[in-house]
C-alpha cells in the first residue's frame, strides 16, 4: 500500500477492528479511511463497487469475512468480475483481489467453515490461489495485488495462528502462482493445498517412520492448475494421492486426478486416490473431525495405492 496508492482495502470490519481475523490490523490508522474502507454489511455491494473502482483505476483488495458469506457476492463475481476483461476485450482490466478465509478446523458455527474453492475454479476469468505458509501468504498476496486479473485468494483460517519467519526483503524467484514441492520424496506423490498441506506433511513424517517416502506438493494455484511438477513427480513415484478438505464431487481433487490419468497414465502403478471432504453440507463443528482429512486418512490412501 505504501508503494502503490491505487491499492485499497475494503470489507466489513477491516478498518477500526482490523478484520475479524486481524489481518488488516493497524492499516486504517496508517492509510486512512479512504484507503482502508469499512463497508456496509453487503457482500454484493463490496464486490460490485470494487468492480467500478477497478474500472476507475484502483486495485481493490476486498475481504469476505468467512467462506460461507461469499455467496451473496457470487453473482457479481461470476457475472461481472470474471467477465469484464473478456467482454470489453481488454478495455477494462479487473485488478481485484477477493480474500476469503476458508476451510474448517476452528470449531465455528454454520457458514463459517466451508471450502468453496472449486466453485471459483470453474469460472473462467478468475485466478484462484490458496496459501499455506506465512511466507507464501505474504508473497502470494503481493503477487495477487500486482496481478491485472481478478484473484480469488483463499487463506486457510486454521493456519492464521501459525507463526513463522517472513522475509519481506527478498522477492520470490518467479511466480508464486505455481506448484511447489514442500517435501521431496520418492514413493508416493501427495498433492494438496491450503490447510491440508500441514496434514500431508505430518502424514509424510509418519510414513517415513514406516519406510515410505512421500513427496508433498503444494498446488498454491488452483486455477490455472500448475500440474507439470505434479506430473513430473508422478512419473517418478507412480503413485498419487490428492488431499483436500473440499467435497469430492466436481472438485479440484477430481480435476487433478483426471489430469494425472490423462497425462501420466502409463506411469501409474495404482489408481489415483483421493482424500476429501464428504459430499455433505459442512457438519456441526463437534463432528468436523470426522469430516476433515487427517493424518490417518492420508496414510490409508497411501496404503490403498500399494494394495492395488
Amino acid at each position, binding site marked *: 500500500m505504501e508503494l502503490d496508492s491505487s491499492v485499497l482495502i475494503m470489507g466489513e470490519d477491516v478498518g477500526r477492528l482490523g478484520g475479524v481475523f486481524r489481518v488488516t490490523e493497524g492499516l486504517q490508522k496508517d492509510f486512512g479511511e479512504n484507503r482502508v474502507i469499512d463497508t456496509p454489511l453487503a457482500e454484493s455491494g463490496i464486490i*460490485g*463497487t470494487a468492480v*467500478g473502482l477497478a474500472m476507475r483505476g484502483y486495485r481493490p483488495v476486498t475481504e469476505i469475512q468467512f467462506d460461507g458469506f461469499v455467496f451473496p457476492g457470487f453473482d457479481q463475481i461470476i457475472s*461481472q468480475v470474471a467477465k469484464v*476483461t473478456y467482454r*470489453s476485450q481488454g478495455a*477494462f482490466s479487473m485488478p481485484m483481489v477477493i480474500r476469503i478465509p476458508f476451510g474448517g478446523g476452528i470449531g465455528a458455527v454454520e457458514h463459517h467453515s466451508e471450502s468453496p474453492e472449486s466453485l471459483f475454479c470453474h469460472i*473462467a476469468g478468475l485466478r484462484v490461489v490458496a496459501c499455506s505458509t506465512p511466507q507464501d501468504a505474504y508473497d502470494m498476496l503481493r503477487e495477487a495485488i500486482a496481478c491485472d*486479473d481478478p484473484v480469488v485468494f483463499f487463506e486457510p483460517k486454521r493456519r492464521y495462528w501459525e507463526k513463522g519467519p517472513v522475509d519481506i526483503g527478498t522477492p520470490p524467484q518467479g511466480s508464486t502462482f505455481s506448484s511447489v514441492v514442500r517435501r521431496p520424496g520418492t514413493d508416493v506423490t501427495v498433492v494438496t493445498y491450503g490447510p491440508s498441506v500441514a496434514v500431508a506433511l505430518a502424514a509424510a513424517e509418519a510414513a517415513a517412520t514406516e519406510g515410505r517416502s512421500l513427496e508433498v506438493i503444494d498446488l498454491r494455484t488452483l*486455477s490455472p492448475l500448475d500440474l507439470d511438477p505434479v506430473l513430473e513427480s508422478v512419473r517418478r513415484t507412480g503413485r498419487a494421492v490428492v488431499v483436500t478438505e473440499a467435497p469430492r464431487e466436481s472438485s479440484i481433487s477430481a480435476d487433478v486426478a483426471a489430469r494425472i490419468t490423462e497425462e501420466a497414465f502409463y506411469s501409474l502403478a495404482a489408481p489415483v486416490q483421493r482424500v476429501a471432504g464428504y459430499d455433505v453440507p459442512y457438519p456441526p463443528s463437534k463432528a468436523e473431525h470426522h469430516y476433515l482429512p487427517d493424518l490417518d486418512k492420508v496414510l490409508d490412501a497411501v496404503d490403498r495405492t500399494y494394495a492395488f
Partner: protein
Amino acid sequence: MQESDQREQHPERRERSGAASGGPEQDPPTTARDAAAQGAAGTAAHPTPEQVVAGLRATSEGPDLVELLSPEGVFTPHPDYPLEVTAELLQGLYRDMVLVRRFDREGNALQRQGQLSLWAPLLGQEAAQIGAGRALRPTDMAFPSYREHGVAWCRGIDPAQLLGIFRGTDQCGWDPAATRFNGYAIVIGNQVLNAVGYAMGQRLDGAVGGAGNSASAAGAGADGPDGADGPEGVDGSEATIAFFGDGATSQGDVHEAMVFGAVFDAPVVFYCQNNQWAISEPVEKQSRVPLYRRAHGYGFPGVRVDGNDVLACLAVTRWALQECRSGNGPVMIEAFTYRMDAHTTSDDPTRYRLADEEEAWKLLDPIERVRVHLTREGLADAAFFERVAQDADELAAHFRAACYALDSPGPDRLFSHVYSGEHEQTRRQHAEQIGYLASFQEPAESGR
C-alpha cells in the same frame, strides 16, 4: 432479457377484445394524463380492486411529475430545474430522438429478418434517454442496462456498434473506457453497484466539488452544436449515472448500490426508467410506493420526471449531475415513461397488456410533443423536418449495411482477453484449438 432469450415467440396472438379477458369492466382512461396517472394498473387485464390500489400507490402517489413540455407541446419553465430553451437545443433533441427511434425500428426489422438473434427495443423511451444522455458531459461515466441505445447515441457511439451484442459477433462493440459508456449489463441490477464503485473512485480521485461548481452552473451548461452539454471537464468535476428499470429496483444489488452510494456520498445519479413493465410484470409487482420515493429512505433526493418530456429529463438530469459533481450526490431520478414495444423481440406483450393502454400512451409520445412545439412556435420549418427524416433514413441504411457487414469472430476470439496476462490453461487450450483446425488442412506436399 435473461429469461426471454429462451422464450419462443408466442404463435397465437391473442384477441385483444374485452370479451377475451372477462372480469369486471373498467372505464378506459379518456385523457393522456389519466393514462399516466393510472399507469400500469389502470388498464392491465382487468386487475382486482386490490391490484388497482397497489398500482395507484406504486405509480401515482406523491406530487406530480416534473414536466416542462406538455403532451400538447406547451412549454412551461420549472423554477427548480431551469433550462435555457433555444431553437437549436430543441431541434437537436428532436433530431436525436427521431434518429434513435429510426434505427431502433430497424433493429426490430433486422431481428425479424433473421439478421439479429434479439433486439431490445426502446420505442417510447427516446425522451428519457436523450434527455439524460444530453445532460452528460464527456468526462462523466455512464453504466447502462441493455436498452440504452439512445444514451449510447449521445455518447457518440455509432449505433452500428450496438449490433454486435444482438448479432452475436461481440459482447461489447465499443470501447467502454474511451467512450465512458460501459458495456451493456444483462444481469438485472449488477451495473448499478458497478456505477457506485466507479463514482466512489471519482470521489477518491478528488474529481468532485471542483472549482467553478455552483448551483448556478446547473442548467447553464453551454450546449454543443448537437445539443451536447458543456465543454469537457470545465471544472474538473465528474459524475456517474446508472441506468436501470423499474424491475431492477426489486434487485438486492440496486438496494445495496443505494446504501453504498449514500454512505460514501458517491457522485452517482440513479436513473430509473420506469417503463411500467418488467417483461410481463407491472410496477405494482415491484413496489407499493412510487419508485422515486424510495430514495428518501436512503437519505438522498428522489425526483419523478415525465419520462416522455425530453426537456424535463434534460433539465432534471443536468441538475442531478451537477448536484453530484458539486458533492451533493447521490440523486435518484425516476423517469416515468412507457415501453411502447415488447421487452425484447422474443416477448409478446399482447399476452399481458391491453391495446387501450398502449393507445393511451401514444398520446404522450415524446417526439410528437417536440414536433408540435417546434411547429407552433415557428422554431423549425418543413425543410428541417424533411432533413431530419432524410438523416434518419440514411442512418437506418448505414445501420442495416453495417449489420450485414459484421464479421463473425474467428476462433481466436474465444481466447482473447479472457485474462489480461498470461494464463497457462487458456494458452494450452488455444494451441489445442489451432492444432485441431490445422488438422483439416491438406498437407502442402502430400504424397497421396
